[in-house]
Each structure stands twice: as structure tokens, then as C-alpha cells.
């Protein structure tokens, strides 16, 4: 494409929207806005034949013309304007700013994962860009730094929370579920005794298009399988003293899923009403704490546990991740809240 400097391009604004202003350099000849065509320069590098021009509105303004794109200009992208046989290009400035977004946490926060580990959460300090998560989250052999290809499940639609600050990733369930061909061919993604690291690289872009201020890595040992239902009957409750706002602490027999843990437990008071307060997952997701808004009154309390609460291997209160049909212990349990009672005296 010719780049004769006959057209003069500059960035402007029309009614609050970014626009490209086009005029003729050195002359006062008018521009016919109807003849104006705008293309992303890279896309049109080998010619504009067959390419639809960028969609937008155009008009004249004195002797110059303007173009307001329907979907906005992309930061860091060069645009080429073609008009009546002339062409010129102009770069849209890249997004300003220094990288500030960081990884706040990676869950589980345990030092080890079971071989059949299912789910990972990455929490970011700011909203993120979607669409390329698996390019920036890596599971690597901690000793060799070699990437464990195919360990994480590729999904066309990524799993984000509403704020796009928490990313959910799954280890490939086809390699975890027993008996499937992928499991038999490729084996579990994780191997007991071979530590792995989960790396979020700094190239992960936040919602402003900026990379992370720094990458983040968490290293895990790998242990044996985690099987069987999540069993609230095996938990230990540490009731606080009456009249205090000290937290109720519940200790689990295994690490539970961090995402579900903050939604799945609640406390009902002697009057049958839910007790207001704040909750938190304990270290390594092995406990849960609940601090009431008002001091504990004496009486009989109840902890309700959602049957969908899962451990880190996808086993829930109601069912196990892959049920062995020959083992009665794996039989489904009622899909209703499990209830644990405790007394504040």
C-alpha cells in the first residue's frame, strides 16, 4: 500500500468519541468523506482487496473529514486511511500506565495436592482480560521446570467470577476420572512424589490491557488420592464462650474447596434465625471461622452445611467425584443440608 504523505491524519474527538481527522497536506483541497476508507494497517498490509473497511460514521468538517468507528479504536494499533487513491497511516497510542495488578492468592493454599486434585482458583487484585488464561497459567514439574502439557482443561468459555478477578481452572477431569481412555492413556496429570508448581506469568493482561506487576508461583507436593464423601460428622467444632464475639471455629478432616467454602456453611441460633456475622476460610482451607455480629447468647445452635460443598478433589457431601459402583461407601447421600449442633453455655 502506498504511503504518500498526501493525507494528513490526526486524532481528535467528536461528541466525546475518539475520531480520526483527515485533511490534505499542503493544499486546501477538500476531502470527500464518502471516499474515506479506514483499515487496521497490519490487516491491510497485503492490500485491501476483499477486505471490508472498518465500520463507522464519517463526515466533513471544513475542508477535512472525520471518521468515528462504531467499536472504537484499539490502543496500540496502527490505522491506514485510504482516500481517492491516497493513503496514510497513524498509530493509536498504546494504553498508558504502569503495571499494578498482582496475583493476590492461589488456592488451594495447602503445601500438597492429592493426585486426583480437581480445581484451582487464582485471585487477582483487579479485573482481568479474558480469552487467554491457559497461555499464562502453567503447571510445571518443580524440579525440571518442564510444563506438564494438557494438565489443565481447555475450555472455550473461561470460568471467571462476575468481577473477572477470580479465575477457576480445572485439572483435566478426563485424566482424573477412573476408567476413561484418557486416564488410561495419559494417566493422572499429577504424580505422587513429584512436586509441581503452578505459575501465573506476568504476561497475563489485566482489564486495561497491562501485564501483571509480577508473576506468581505456588509449589505443591503431590500426595495420594483423596476419596470418599466430605463428611461433616467427622469435623470438630470449637464453640466460643458465651457473651463474646469470639469466632466459632470448625476444623475439617481434609482441605475443602476454597470457592465453595465461603458459601456453604451458616449458623442458625436458638431462635431459629440465621446468625449474622462474617466468615473466613482458615489456613490451608482446613477450617472455617464465623464471628458473630453480636455476642453469642447462650443456647443451642446449628451449623448448616450445603450438600454441594466439595473437597479439592471434587468429592462433595452428597456424592463422590467418580463413584465406584461396586463400593457401597460411594453411594450417594441425601441432597439436603447436613446439620451439626453445638451449645453455647
Amino acid at each position, binding site marked *: 500500500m502506498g504511503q504518500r504523505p498526501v493525507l494528513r491524519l490526526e486524532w481528535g474527538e467528536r461528541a466525546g468519541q475518539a475520531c480520526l481527522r483527515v485533511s490534505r497536506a499542503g493544499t486546501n483541497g477538500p476531502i470527500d468523506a464518502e471516499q474515506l476508507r479506514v483499515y487496521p494497517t497490519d490487516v491491510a498490509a497485503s492490500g485491501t482487496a476483499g477486505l471490508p473497511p472498518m465500520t463507522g460514521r464519517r463526515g466533513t468538517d471544513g475542508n477535512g473529514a472525520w471518521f468515528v468507528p462504531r467499536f472504537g479504536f484499539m490502543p496500540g494499533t496502527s490505522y491506514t486511511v485510504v482516500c481517492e487513491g491516497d493513503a496514510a497511516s497513524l498509530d493509536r497510542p498504546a494504553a498508558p500506565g504502569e503495571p499494578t495488578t498482582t496475583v493476590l492468592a492461589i488456592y488451594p493454599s495447602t503445601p500438597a495436592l492429592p493426585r486426583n486434585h480437581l480445581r484451582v482458583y487464582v485471585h487477582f487484585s483487579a479485573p482481568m482480560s479474558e480469552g487467554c488464561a491457559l497461555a499464562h497459567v502453567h503447571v510445571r514439574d518443580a524440579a525440571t521446570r518442564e510444563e506438564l502439557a494438557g494438565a489443565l482443561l481447555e475450555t472455550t*468459555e473461561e470460568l471467571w467470577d462476575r468481577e473477572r478477578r477470580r479465575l477457576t481452572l480445572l485439572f483435566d477431569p478426563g485424566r482424573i*476420572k477412573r476408567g476413561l481412555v484418557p486416564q488410561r492413556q495419559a494417566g493422572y496429570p499429577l504424580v505422587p512424589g513429584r512436586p509441581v508448581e503452578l505459575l501465573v506469568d506476568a504476561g497475563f493482561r489485566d482489564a486495561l490491557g497491562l501485564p501483571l506487576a509480577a508473576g506468581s508461583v505456588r509449589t505443591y507436593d503431590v500426595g495420594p488420592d483423596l476419596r470418599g464423601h466430605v463428611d461433616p460428622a467427622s469435623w470438630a467444632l470449637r464453640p466460643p464462650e458465651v457473651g463474646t464475639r469470639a469466632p466459632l471455629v470448625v476444623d475439617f478432616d481434609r482441605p475443602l474447596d476454597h470457592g465453595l467454602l465461603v*458459601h456453604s456453611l451458616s449458623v442458625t441460633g436458638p431462635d431459629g434465625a440465621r446468625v449474622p456475622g462474617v466468615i473466613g476460610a482458615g489456613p490451608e482451607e482446613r477450617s472455617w471461622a464465623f464471628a458473630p455480629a453480636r455476642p453469642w447468647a447462650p443456647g443451642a445452635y446449628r451449623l448448616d452445611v*450445603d450438600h454441594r460443598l466439595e473437597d479439592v478433589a471434587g468429592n462433595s457431601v452428597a456424592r463422590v467425584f467418580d463413584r465406584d459402583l*461396586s463400593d457401597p461407601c460411594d453411594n450417594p447421600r441425601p441432597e439436603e443440608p447436613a446439620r451439626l449442633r453445638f451449645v453455647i453455655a
Partner: protein
Amino acid sequence: MTDHGMAVGTPVLESVGPVTFGPGDVLFVADNRRAAVVAIDVADPAPAAAGEPFDLEDLDAKLASYLGCAVKDVSIRDLAVHPRTHNVYLSVMRGSGDAARPVIIRIDRADGTVSALSLDAVAWSEVAITDAPAIDDERLETSLAEGDEGEEMTFGDRTFRIVRAPVRMATVTDLKYVDGTLLVAGLSNEEFASTLRRIPFPFTGDVASTGLEIFHVSHGQWETAAPIRTFVPYQGGTSILASYTCTPLVHFPLGDLQPGAKARGRTVAELGSGNTPLDIVSFTREGEEFLLVSHTSHPLMKIACSDIDGQEPLTEPREPVGVPRQLPELQGIGRMDNLNGDYVLAIQRDERGGRHLRSLKTAGL
């Protein structure tokens, strides 16, 4: 109000994902950022089309040029062919992050013209795809923050740092319309479960009771309720073939899928490791119905529906297992939809990574 219980207005999409056509001009669009499905009357002005093929070279470059961005900034999420006009509709995300713009692209089958569907003053309605709330959702959207995240809150003499806990969301992975019902498969961002929603259309707003779980059994020994990734109704909508996140192809009769039910599917094929099914379509040739399955790494696969009916549940783990399948030697096939009685329209990726629209003649498959 217009037909199908839709009102004229401007739907606000934050994202576009899987799409499928319903009755008339109704296009269902999954907006996963908002956890909703939006029904839009696309009012396609083209006349009814006949049975010609349609191909379009350099789809990526054309979309990037029209949308004014680099090819890497164009993310094609899904493809649907208008059943009457055979115009091609693509759900496309242009850019990412705060700059992301969801766009429904219409490609005119007659001349290949690209345009973006205007959402101003269209007939539309929507339904929220929420997960059934956890027992405490209305209250425990806060949790104790770590470090200096969140904000301080004081209860009596105690001060906590509070952060809103992320909300459990369903992400739509596929959706199809059968006789007044929109079938929606989704993945939860917290729970490993197989929930298929049957949502009556016109939308009534109530999807709470529409979920059902579908189990599948591996080799008669292990049973899982895994999320469905992609599926297709066939045999006039009475049967469904679904692919799961853990790869088996599973058949179940639609009649088994009543709200609140727990259905057990029949595993009819296993596809091996390192491969993920991307899309499934059905077509009929000389009175016989077939399914086409596209994959991330396997070539396109053709399965006769009669073989699915005759396939015993798989009990022997070996590869290949399950129904006979043919490989029509087509690589790089991604999203597909029926173009007309003689052709399936597909997005095909070439060796250089460029994508094109290709009509696959069903008689030649």
C-alpha cells in the same frame, strides 16, 4: 410486545458466547459475563434461501478489518446459520478486558458482506442463568480478607477486613432449541456438576426448577456427573448426544430429562486423550441420520445415528471404543451448523492458522 413474549428495546450485552437459532428470527445468545441468555429477533431481511453452498475465505482478516482491530483481537465464539435465509451469524468478542466489545456479526450468504447486528430497538427478552443459591448466599457474600485486601468493618469491639466473596456463576458452554424449549448446558465456576437446563421459550423468568443432572458411567464401574461441553438434539429432538468435559460421548433420550430429574446417559464412544470435542451437528442423507463431531486435535468424525441406537453401554476400556466412526479427512474443523439440507457450514482453520467458512457437502462426507 411482539411474538415470543419479547419487547422492543435495546439489550445490553457484556459478552457473547454460544449462539443458536430458535423459532422464526429468534437468535439465542449466551452472555456469560452476565450469566444470562438473551433472545434477539434478528429480523433478517433476506429472502428464503435454497440449497447452494457458501464459502468465505480469510474470515479472520475480514472480521478484523471490519471491526478495526488486529486479527489477534478477534475471538470468534460461535456460529449459527439462519434457518430460513441461510445467512451466517457469528458471536464475536472484539478485544478483551474493559475494551472488549461483544458483536453479533451477520454475513450475507448472497455476497459475503459483513455487518454487525444493530441492537437498537430490536425485539428481545432474556433469562438469567443463575445457579441455585447456596444456603447462605443472601448473607455470606462477605468473608475475612487476607492481607490488606478489602475494607475494614467493625462489629462491636472487633474489626475485620471484609471482602466480598466471588459469586458462584454458571458459564454457558452450549445451547440448543427444541420445540419450545431452550436446552442450556453450563459449567459452574465452583461446583463440578452436570446441570442441563430446560428453559421454556417464551421465557417466563423461572429457571430454578429447570435443572437436571445427567450421570454417565465409565465401563460399568465408575459413575460421574460431569459438566456437558457440547451437545446436539437429533431424531427430531427426541435424542441427545452430548460430549462431557471428561470426553466420552453420551446418549440420552430427551424424554428422560424432566426438571429435577437425575438421568443416566449411555456412554457410546470414547475419544482418547489429548483431544476435546468442539461441536456436534446432525444431518440426514438419503433418509439416514448422521452426526458430525469436530475436535481440537482429531479430524472431523462422522457417526451413524443407527449405530448409536445399537451401541451397548461401554464396559471395556480400549481404544478406539464405542460406535463406529468415520474420519472424512477434514482437519481444522471448529464450530459448525447446518447450512441447508445438502451442506454443513464449518469454520476451518488452515495450517497457517487462518480461518475460513467452508460448506461441507453432506453427500461427500
